[in-house]
């Protein structure tokens, strides 16, 4: 029951991220999603009693729910760009595509799990749709920041999928993934900051022309 509610809350937050028009709203959505991921990890850790899972949960909280949102907010404030995400699809169409994506993921989960395992099926549906929503954010938003956020959302989905279906990857792999993510956010953040300096905007749809 608890894990079902957490999954539904995750779906709620991810839908909200898809409708959001402002950069800060999407960053907040990512923070809430990470907090829910933390709660799900904690639930898993309590259920299995594995110390490594507690450490992973703490890492999720520290890196994804505190550090990354803080850093993203900081660079958006420093870049002083407009809050508009630059939507290619309007919020309502985005929501409808979100529904379609979730339904596809549900059908996909139906092929993997039989009807006897409804909890696994729900988990698979929601984590795969979180991955799909991350991709959606990367493709259908114009500002370069949404590319990082989309990638982070996809990573959240993969993390959820990995930790629930297989009880977690090997500990050292998880640590490496966290380190990777940490470095990636800093590098891409700096990169976007540079793009903004050079082009005075971070609109990826206008980056196709050469600038001498």
């Amino acid at each position, binding site marked *: *029951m608890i894990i*079902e*509610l957490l999954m*539904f809350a995750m779906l*709620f937050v991810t*839908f909200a991220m898809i*409708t959001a028009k402002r950069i800060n709203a999407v960053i907040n959505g990512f923070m809430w999603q990470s907090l829910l991921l933390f709660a799900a990890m904690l639930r898993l850790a309590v259920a299995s009693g594995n110390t490594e899972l507690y450490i992973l949960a703490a890492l999720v909280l520290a890196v994804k729910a505190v550090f990354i949102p803080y850093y993203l907010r900081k660079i958006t404030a420093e870049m002083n760009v407009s809050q508009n995400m630059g939507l290619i699809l309007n*919020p309502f169409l985005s*929501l*409808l595509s979100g529904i379609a994506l979730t339904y596809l993921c549900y059908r996909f989960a139906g092929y993997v799990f039989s009807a006897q395992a409804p909890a696994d099926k729900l988990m698979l549906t929601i984590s795969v749709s979180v991955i799909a929503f991350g991709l959606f954010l990367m493709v259908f938003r114009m500002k370069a920041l949404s590319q990082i956020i989309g990638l982070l959302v996809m990573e959240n989905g993969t993390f959820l999928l990995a930790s629930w279906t297989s009880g977690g990857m090997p500990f050292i792999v998880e640590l490496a993934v966290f380190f990777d993510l940490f470095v990636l956010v800093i590098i891409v953040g700096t990169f976007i900051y540079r793009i903004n300096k050079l082009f005075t905007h971070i609109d990826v749809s206008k980056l196709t022309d050469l600038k001498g």
Partner: protein
Amino acid sequence: MKTVHILLQVLFAAAFAPLVSGVIRKIKNSVRMRTGAPVLQPYYNLFKLLGKEEVRSVHSSWILAAAPYVVFASTVAAVFFTPILCGGPVFGEAGDFLVIIFLFSLGRFFQALAGLDAAGAFGGMGSSREMFLSALVEPAVLVAALTVSLNAGTTDAAAISGGVLRSSACLGAAAMLLAAMAETSRIPVDNQETHLELTMVHEAMVLEYSGRALALIELAAHIKQLVFFSIIASLMLPCGAGAGLYGAGGYLAKLLVISLIIALTEISLAKMRLFRAVDFLGFALVLALAGAVMSAAGF
């Protein structure tokens, strides 16, 4: 015996409803570090209005005079079908969950007519906005109702409120909460705290009213809010059959939590542009749809 119970429940709802509004205002003022009006202020307002003379435009027709009574009567009729103190008795024989939504539409129809009737510039604008919003709210409410109806296997309010809580109902409850914010003219969609602003919706329609008629309309708005909260507290999130006193306590606790959520949303958000409300209520509809699908999938 059951009839007496239902009548007592309706009287309780009518007497209790303004208090909920008062509590929400009090929470908002406390968070803003203001003293604010006392919790009982909505009652004082109602009594003050009842003692005042009613003024009606000479150019208005009978619709303006009749609308407050229709609005009030339809709202009170809706209370007859809503289980108030979790599992409280309802007129199950006369109608089900969907009748509540129908009765609200009846009230809204007359209110919109009354807004047009006096031919004020604000009234017509308010009516047109109200109908625009209601076209968006109703699908969300109906699909959210479908979620719990699927869970319980019936649309009968008493049976739903006596059912077990399933996790898909929580998605429906979230959708219903967003719809309730729009229906009770709360901040992301409308603003209760202001008159004479170009963005208002509900207040624009009732601008022509004064005295006793205004008191009736305000009381109806308080009751409508309580009914919506009760739909969330005892239908969307049922607390099980025969809960008795324990259920009543749970109901009051849920009401407090809902008031807290509404109050905190109101002070932390700005009012949306009218056409952004489409996205807000579309989100509610999508949540309700997700809830209905999950309910059909057995969660």
